[in-house]
């Protein structure tokens, strides 16, 4: 590609997935999937198990050949990157080092192949706090240490883009918090972070944007608040009362919408909690619970992917 024909995303860390499809013998793992990932933001890549997240990431990284479609990073296919490790760092699975090799030697092997100085191995180990275990063999590493080693490997080339597949797996709460700070800091520097996960509460804390897929297809993409706000219901009030019929009638008189949650509580929308309380008081109805429920990523996710998460 000559300079005159460069696509707008060239030189930046923008990821563009376009019409990506992977057909295995009996399963269409990824089905005409298109989305973009912007630099300077953390993008969560969400989907039920078997939705095609890992296959998509592997196609993006030239490890799996797509049946159709393209995936580019900064306007170029991964296979066409001249210096891939200096552009893209990827953490795909925790158990990807020779069991008999030390963590430091694992990184040195990668440095040698990528033409990076061996000193980068020690710098990357320090960055992820793994220096004390540098000379220990990989088979002695805990799951959390393996994840940190994977991130160290991804950071060797000081890349513009980070791609992580379920990085929180096996990390303890402290490790998860460390990872959150690390990825947010990385994005703040104007770099791109694409991270797949099924830990939705964690994603709500971490991600700026989300891409939600199910059964290989795109379900929703956008900033987290926007995706949550786009759902049919907004804020709801959960009420418990022994006099459900009386309260329902009183609330409906005030033009509120009342549903039951199927477990004995009422879900009121179109009215805030103080007004629900006041209405109950006026109707002399006894209340056992009065909670404001804001929609969260988990609720939105479950609603969006309902019925699409079956084993394929």
């Amino acid at each position, binding site marked *: 590609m000559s300079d005159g024909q460069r696509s707008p995303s060239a030189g930046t860390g923008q990821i563009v997935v376009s019409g990506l499809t992977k057909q295995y013998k009996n399963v269409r793992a990824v089905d005409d999937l298109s989305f973009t990932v912007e630099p300077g933001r953390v993008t969560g890549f969400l989907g039920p198990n078997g939705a095609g997240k*890992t*296959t998509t990431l*592997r196609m993006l*990284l*030239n*490890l*799996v*050949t797509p049946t159709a479609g393209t995936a580019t990073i900064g306007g170029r296919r*991964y*296979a066409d*990157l001249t210096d*891939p*490790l200096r552009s893209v760092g*990827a953490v*795909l*699975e925790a*158990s*990807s*080092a*020779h*069991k*008999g*090799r*030390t963590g430091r*030697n*694992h990184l*040195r*092997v*990668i440095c*040698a*192949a*990528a*033409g990076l100085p061996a000193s980068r191995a020690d710098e990357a180990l320090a960055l992820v706090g793994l220096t004390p275990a540098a000379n220990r063999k990989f088979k002695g590493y805990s799951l959390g240490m393996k994840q940190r080693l994977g991130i160290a*490997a991804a950071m060797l080339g000081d890349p513009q883009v980070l791609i992580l597949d379920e990085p929180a797996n096996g990390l303890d709460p402290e490790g998860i918090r460390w990872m959150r700070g690390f990825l947010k800091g990385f994005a703040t520097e104007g770099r791109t972070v694409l991270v797949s996960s099924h830990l939705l509460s964690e994603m709500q804390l971490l991600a700026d944007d989300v891409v939600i897929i199910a059964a290989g297809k795109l379900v929703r993409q956008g900033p987290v608040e926007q995706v949550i706000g786009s759902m049919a219901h907004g804020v709801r009030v959960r009420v418990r009362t022994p006099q459900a019929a009386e309260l329902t009638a009183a609330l409906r008189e005030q033009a509120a919408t009342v549903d039951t949650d199927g477990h004995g509580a009422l879900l009121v929308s179109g009215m805030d909690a103080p007004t629900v309380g006041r209405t109950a008081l006026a109707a002399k109805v006894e209340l056992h619970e009065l909670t404001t429920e804001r929609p969260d990523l988990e609720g939105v996710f479950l609603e969006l992917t309902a019925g699409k998460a079956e084993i394929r």
Partner: protein
Amino acid sequence: MNLVRSELLKIRTTSTWWLLGIGAFLATALAFAINAWLAHQVLSGNAEDFGVSGEQASAAGQAANLYTSGQYLGLLFVMLIGILMVTNEFFHQTATTTFLTTPRRTSVILSKLGAASLLGFGFWLATTVIDLVAGTIFLTVDGHGTQLSEWPVHRALLLNLLAYAIWTILGVGIGTLIPNQLGAVITAAVLYLVGTQVVQLLFFLLSNWLDSQAVVKWQVVWPAVASQVMISGSSTELTPDWWVGALVLVGYALVSGVFGVLITRRRDIS
């Protein structure tokens, strides 16, 4: 060059190479002891008791045999290293990291071939130095001279080097064709060890059935037989010239290497 360096570092940073190195050393020591005893017997007039005749019965022939002691198992070990260089990537799931670092997969396989050749050369050099030191001492003490200026000795050393190079490369080729570690090792062991006797028997039966002595020479198509033909450096009425064996082996290495590269380029790494 970076890639070859990386491949050599991969070998150096695990225990495989020195385990196989110790194996090769023990095999060399054992083979040398047997060959030295044989040389002593043959050269002190008992050649016919051992079925040794012609060039093999000369001091130069026995010296050549002695100077290539440990070759039989040594070749197996370097082939195993070649195989493990590839299958380890799948067994330990490092293929992902390797191909992320270098998306040009052909370069990865070629660098493995390069590193394997260097390693094969290293094994040849080490065993040959041991054989030469021990061999010259033994032959001198036993009163036959070192024989180091004889062509059959030079020829044996060079063909030995060729065998080490080809079998290591063949190992890499087998590894790319059969990424399953156990499957590849067993296949290779069968090709190299078990095969020979079975193949010889089959070809003798075939030649009897066809009533043609020439058919027996065709057993050279089997890699292990081709290797023996090549190493022997001379032809008999049952085997073709040494270069036929060399061509067959090079052919196997080329075919497995080319198919290995093609398959690896298309393979989904997951």
